[in-house]
């Protein structure tokens, strides 16, 4: 994304610097406004960012160098949260893409299932937590189930759409050359639906962060969502804000990394669109 600067000329470096600056100049201004505003307000519930950062450092980032400066508390909360997040998200991807291709390629099947899909995705996942507690084990299983349920819909809907509208000439070509089922799936349908699938998968990633938090509010003893609830119930407001900031950073990093992957995998799509 950042312009790569070829050569070592100062002009090139300056151009690169300006490009970075154009992206980030608003961030310090926003943080400064936040700091000033909260200082002015002086409310316990709205601590200034400097105080939040100090609390975050104290809670999570003052650990030994061997643990990348993460404290035990950080490791105990971040790792389970991330495991649930990625576990649930990955499972949702597999199920969503698998089911989506099946529904997208079979009119008959989708006739039976479509109304259920429409109904299922309309149910707010938090209302299903009591049900999931009964169906799955409390803790990780229930949390992963909640995440899967919450994030599968964009993947499923986009995959159905992508698989249903594979270009007819592509499909004909594959059929005329007599490609087998597996090859048609992996070589034609999935790549053709790729851009749509990726759009759904990306959307579901930011949803997964939200559902991770929601699922950790019930019957959990660790995780970032648990921290959020714990700090809130203990009136540790800087700590609570710290958890909120952490979620923002986590979402930001996930989204940015995902874009890098998407660029690589879908480079054909982007470049093909540019040339035509």
């Amino acid at each position: 994304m950042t312009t790569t600067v070829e050569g070592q000329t100062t002009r090139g470096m300056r151009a690169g610097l300006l490009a970075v600056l154009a992206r980030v100049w608003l961030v310090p201004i926003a943080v400064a406004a936040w700091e000033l505003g909260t200082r002015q307000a002086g409310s316990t519930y709205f601590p200034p960012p400097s105080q939040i950062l100090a609390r975050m450092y104290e809670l999570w980032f003052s650990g030994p160098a061997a643990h990348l400066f993460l404290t035990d508390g950080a490791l105990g909360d971040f790792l389970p949260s991330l495991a649930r997040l990625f576990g649930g998200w990955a499972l949702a991807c597999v199920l969503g893409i698998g089911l989506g291709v099946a529904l997208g390629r079979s009119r008959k099947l989708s006739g039976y299932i479509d109304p259920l899909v429409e109904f299922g995705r309309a149910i707010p996942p938090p209302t299903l937590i009591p049900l999931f507690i009964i169906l799955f084990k409390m803790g990780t299983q229930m949390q992963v189930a909640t995440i899967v349920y919450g994030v599968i819909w964009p993947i499923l809907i986009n995959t159905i759409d992508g698989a249903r509208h594979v270009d007819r000439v592509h499909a004909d070509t594959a059929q005329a050359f007599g490609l087998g089922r597996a090859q048609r799936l992996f070589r034609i349908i999935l790549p053709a639906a790729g851009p749509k699938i990726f759009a759904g998968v990306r959307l579901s990633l930011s949803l997964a962060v939200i559902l991770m938090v929601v699922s950790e509010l019930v019957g959990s003893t660790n995780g970032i969502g648990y921290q959020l609830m714990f700090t809130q119930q203990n009136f540790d407001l800087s700590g609570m804000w710290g958890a909120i900031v952490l979620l923002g950073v986590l979402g930001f990093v996930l989204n940015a990394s995902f874009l890098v992957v998407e660029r690589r995998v879908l480079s054909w799509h982007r470049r093909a669109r540019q040339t035509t």
Partner: protein
Amino acid sequence: MLDVVNLSHTYGEGPNAHQALGGIDLKVAEGEMVCVVGPSGCGKSTLLRSIAGLIRPTEGQIRIRETTVADTPGDLAVVFQDYSRSLFPWMSVGDNVALPLRRRGKDRTARRAAAAEALEEVGLAAASSKFPWELSGGMQQRVAIARALAYRPSLLLMDEPFGSVDAQTREDLEDLVLKVREHHRMTVLLITHDIDESVYVGDRVVVLTRSPARVAGELSVDLPFPRDQIATRELPAFVHLRAEVGRLVRAKKESPPVQV
């Protein structure tokens, strides 16, 4: 080789039904190059798609080497008009050409070698690692031809293969098809709306009527090989054949228009 008997096809049902093919009989002999010509929208593509097994005709029979075509026959290749959509943009040129060879049970190296050979033959040896959309239209259609060549089909179907390229490229591609078919002794069924083209590349020209399409007539093309874009087209025989085909196509143009 190919035997089409009384082929009819109707799209839709009831009052909205549209009959595209009205009972077509067609034979293509082993090693023959047959061009099917007809006015636009007469059902040429429906015919081709039926032979390729992409649609199931409402009536009639198609046999390839005495075997009735039910599903997609395993041994034919198709070159579509719309190269930009028949090549897969997410695969390199080499992969595009090699893809159907998986069905031939070849291993990776063999597939690559066959693809390289076919690309060499169409003059695109250097483009193997490029993506289709990085090539010009004519080059993309060459890739599609290479893909069909590498597959070594017993029957090659071409659906207006040169319909989307400029005149110069078109002539080059016509000569390319003549060359490779000569070299591989392939059986080809080429569909086109271009009368000159059908006479120039074909051994035989079959003319279809307007929709619902029937065979209006057919002509043997006994022009000498190798053919040449300038010399062949100057031959009196060529001019005569062209006029004959034109008359067949035109004759039906004057018949009362059929509702679409």
